[in-house]
């Protein structure tokens, strides 16, 4: 897909995302989510999305915004317990859900980005997750086959970027963002800072994975569970 271009407009960045697209979206809970890209997608109103993301935000933030606007057809996630609208749409049959163990989800996304169509894991063996999947023994232990995931687009959030699209993440806001970056046919990254002096030894996502780059201002970074030390 060639190399990153620094763009001005979040609306323009999501312009080519069509109804029915599969999107891989970075973040864990509300930490490290592509705030502005999600909001631009809500404005655009793209429908019938399949979204691969560990969680689905909360009712009024993150991917919950797309859910509330009925833009999501299917979620592929490991945990979706923070969202009332999610429960309603799921129970009414409006929303499909595929639950994937968190480590399997991360590895399936990495595999998709790394050209690996399938891999074996012990995770889920003997549970409902293993139903219908190929089982295979290696050295006397049973594993199941899990498939790589590729997205039409990946929407991610990083801390810093240079203009070549190299990315650096901050603390646990890294989470699924680097693997999502690998697995998008087109990866759109939003960042807090553009810095053309990143140290090449400390790049988390090489620019080869990033096709569109945007800088956001004044990130909300909502905290889901503010926990402080009382003493």
């Amino acid at each position, binding site marked *: 897909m060639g190399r990153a271009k620094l763009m001005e407009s979040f609306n323009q960045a999501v312009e080519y995302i069509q109804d029915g697209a599969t999107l891989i979206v970075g973040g864990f809970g509300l*930490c490290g989510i592509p705030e502005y890209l999600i909001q631009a997608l809500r404005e655009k109103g793209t429908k019938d999305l399949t979204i691969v993301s560990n969680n689905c935000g909360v009712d009024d933030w993150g991917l919950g915004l797309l859910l509330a606007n009925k833009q999501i057809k299917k979620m592929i996630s490991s945990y979706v317990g923070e969202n009332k609208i999610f429960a309603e749409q799921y129970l009414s049959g409006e929303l499909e859900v595929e639950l994937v163990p968190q480590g399997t989800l991360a590895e399936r996304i990495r595999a998709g980005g790394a050209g690996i169509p399938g891999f074996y894991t012990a995770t889920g063996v*003997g*549970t409902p*997750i293993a139903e219908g999947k190929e089982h295979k023994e290696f050295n006397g232990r049973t594993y199941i086959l899990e498939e790589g995931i590729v997205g039409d687009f990946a929407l991610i959030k990083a801390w810093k970027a240079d203009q070549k699209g190299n990315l650096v993440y901050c603390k646990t*806001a890294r989470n699924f*963002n680097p*693997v999502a970056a690998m697995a998008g046919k087109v990866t759109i990254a939003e960042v807090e800072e553009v810095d053309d002096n990143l140290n090449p030894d400390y790049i988390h996502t090489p620019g080869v994975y990033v096709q569109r780059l945007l800088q956001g201002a004044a990130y909300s970074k909502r905290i889901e569970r503010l926990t402080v030390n009382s003493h």
Partner: protein
Amino acid sequence: MMNVRERIIKRAVKEVKDGMNINLGIGMPTLIANEIPNDFDVMLQSENGLLGIGPYPSENEVDADLINAGKETVTTVTGSAFFDSAESFAMIRGGHIDLAILGGMEVSERGDLANWIIPGKMVKGMGGAMDIVNGAKKIVIVMEHVTKHGASKVKKECSLPLTGKQVVNRLITDLAVFDFTSDGMELVELQSGVTVEEVREKTEAEFKLALKV
């Protein structure tokens, strides 16, 4: 006198050895962190991408980019490292975490664990639990021995959908400690003031007694 959870936590912290890398589940297991001896060189892993969880932050230290797997704001200890989710579960799945202590809803006599879904209730998801129980070197489950209605949670077969099959190494309840081996389930310790008879009465699963009990 200690309440049920305190009993379980006090016993569970004895599983923690100096030099271990440990993953503590959300809820009761998280509380174990506070009880780890200060002179232990132990690193706590958070599956969202951190090795070296520190205490909760002061109000000034709160950082939205620094949370644990329970989505709580945390701090880091000296020598911590951040990594992405694939790397985090490579670490877990590959057997590099010495010990995981997780909560349970049911444990069967063969060491099956159910702790992620109750049919008929709203689906939430398994998060990282299925990966952890199949990956960490030692799996310790902490849970109350019986439900609030008095039914045994230590069962012949789990009635709930499984998180993992034959994955539990040790179960710690408010009544006793059990180990699971190829020989079956074995009672290895009683909580103080508890008799074998009481455990038998409140346990659906069949278990043997370890010689030392």
